[in-house]
């Protein structure tokens, strides 16, 4: 018997197995969004949905999920812009410092990313309450910036570190100031690094739940993950609406993963710290 086709078959099975493991639980869940109430709670369960739009309508009209979605877009979007901006400045600065200093600083920053959130939330909550910033966007965005900065700084410091300093020197010789060199020459070249940092920051801020739960207790300002976690029906768990909201929250992330898979893989493995 020939060995090669057998090997190929085994490999193909492994690939299919990995894809099924990753996708099937999620598909089984979000398919509920397209079912009717009787189909969702059918015993034994019914796998195929009848593609009813009822749960989406109910999620939008009765549970007003667009309100959560808008809050998520504002919080995650602003966090991404601020983090990438501050991270780019810091990453560039670190890449141009003497090694001894930049190494020490990067290690301390990495340590910050490892801290358990529970160890910082008490004081952050008191601080925000003192400022009157509980239940505000900035009260959520500022801690998010702090939590996402370590990864962004690492990605960007490594990126700028690999960039030859001659490019800058040339710009300086041409009469640019250092800041002009940064804005006009360095930033355009470093678009890929900035983009990687932006994707990972956005995913983190979009998904974050623990701080969002504590800092924003007013439903008007809550983000999508909090909405999904706290969805309450009158008598039963509103699975269809939860699935619809989950699908709407996850769709942008799935699109990002499909489009930018390569950047995410390189960004995460280069940073080797949590996104």
């Amino acid at each position, binding site marked *: 018997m020939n060995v090669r086709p057998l090997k190929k078959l085994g490999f193909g099975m492994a690939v299919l197995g990995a894809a099924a493991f990753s996708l099937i639980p999620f598909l089984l869940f979000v398919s509920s969004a397209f079912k009717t109430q009787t189909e969702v709670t059918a015993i034994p369960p019914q796998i195929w949905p009848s593609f009813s739009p009822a749960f989406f309508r109910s999620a939008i009209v009765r549970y007003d999920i667009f309100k959560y979605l808008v809050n998520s877009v504002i919080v995650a979007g602003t966090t991404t812009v601020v983090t990438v901006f501050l991270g780019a400045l810091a990453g560039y600065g670190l890449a141009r410092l003497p090694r001894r200093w930049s190494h020490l600083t990067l290690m301390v920053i990495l340590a910050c990313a*490892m801290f358990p959130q529970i160890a910082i939330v008490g004081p952050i909550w*008191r601080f925000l309450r003192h400022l009157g910033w509980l239940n505000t966007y900035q009260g959520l965005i500022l801690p998010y910036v702090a939590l996402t900065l370590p990864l962004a700084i690492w990605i960007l410091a490594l990126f700028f570190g690999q960039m030859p300093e001659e490019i800058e020197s040339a710009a300086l010789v041409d009469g640019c100031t250092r800041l002009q060199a940064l804005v006009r020459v360095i930033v355009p070249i470093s678009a890929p690094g900035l983009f990687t940092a932006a994707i990972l920051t956005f995913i983190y801020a979009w998904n974050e739940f623990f701080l969002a739960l504590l800092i924003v207790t007013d439903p008007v300002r809550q983000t999508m993950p909090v909405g999904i*976690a706290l969805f309450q029906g009158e008598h039963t768990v509103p699975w269809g609406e939860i699935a619809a909201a989950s699908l709407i929250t996850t769709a942008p*992330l799935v699109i990002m993963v499909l489009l930018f898979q390569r950047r995410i*893989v390189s960004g995460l493995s280069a940073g080797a710290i949590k996104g």
Partner: protein
Amino acid sequence: MIAKQHRLSVVLISPALLVLVVFIGAPVIQSVSLSLHRIVISLPQLQTPFVGLGNYQELFHDAVARHSFWVTIVFVSTTTFFELILGLLLALLIHRHFPGRGSLRACVLIPWAIPTVVSAQMWRFLFNDAYGMINYAIFGNGVTHYVPWLAEPGLALCAVILADIWKTSSFAALLILAGLQIIPEELYQAARVDGAGLWRRFWHITWPLIRPALLVALLFRTIDAFRVFDLAFVMTQGGPADATNVLQLYGYKKMFIEGWMGYGSAISVSVFVMILVLAIVYVRMVGRRLLEKSL
């Protein structure tokens, strides 16, 4: 000229450092100070008397806290163990060149990318005692055999562990993949010429060379598993009978549900100290490896 250049660097770094100091550094230190006081949020008239190590003494004799500690240890060790094995297998798979590798990588990344809250609701639904797919997959139409997974202490913990393995194995795979990518292809070619089979190539080339990456993945996953909160909060609220009451959830309940800010801070500082030791080892390893390469 050089000094001036460094001054600019310091100016550029300082805004980011300021944010980190205000929202991470200072809160950690303040947590330690809070943990030495008796603070009840709902009773501000009690003031905040200094109680020294009183909160820690109480914590030491708190049966629920001790139970939480062991639940967390079981959670951390089992999830990390299975995530590393699955992560290694996934990494070996997505490292191979084959048509459709990009699509497979994207598929594998999806559990990592979706919000933990969504995956928690997903597993809560799949583990449902009446209309959940897990019961259906195991028992088919034999409705009388259906198991209430999330209502039995041992099974509920297993369910939360499974949910975490599903969610984060792909992240472990990425960390291990980074290790696989630096192994020169020539080594495998030479071994093949010498007639080494798949298994021998794995044990004599891949295994020794990816051990550093595995260690990084192990440390990172351990640290991260200690911080589990979302899954337990959504799937079980820590129940049944505190079976999934992990430390971060217990700390949250004490601080924000019961309002014992001081006692809760003692829990959070304890979690912090446990993680700190691991984090220092991790930071030294990752830091040295990465910075030697690129800066």
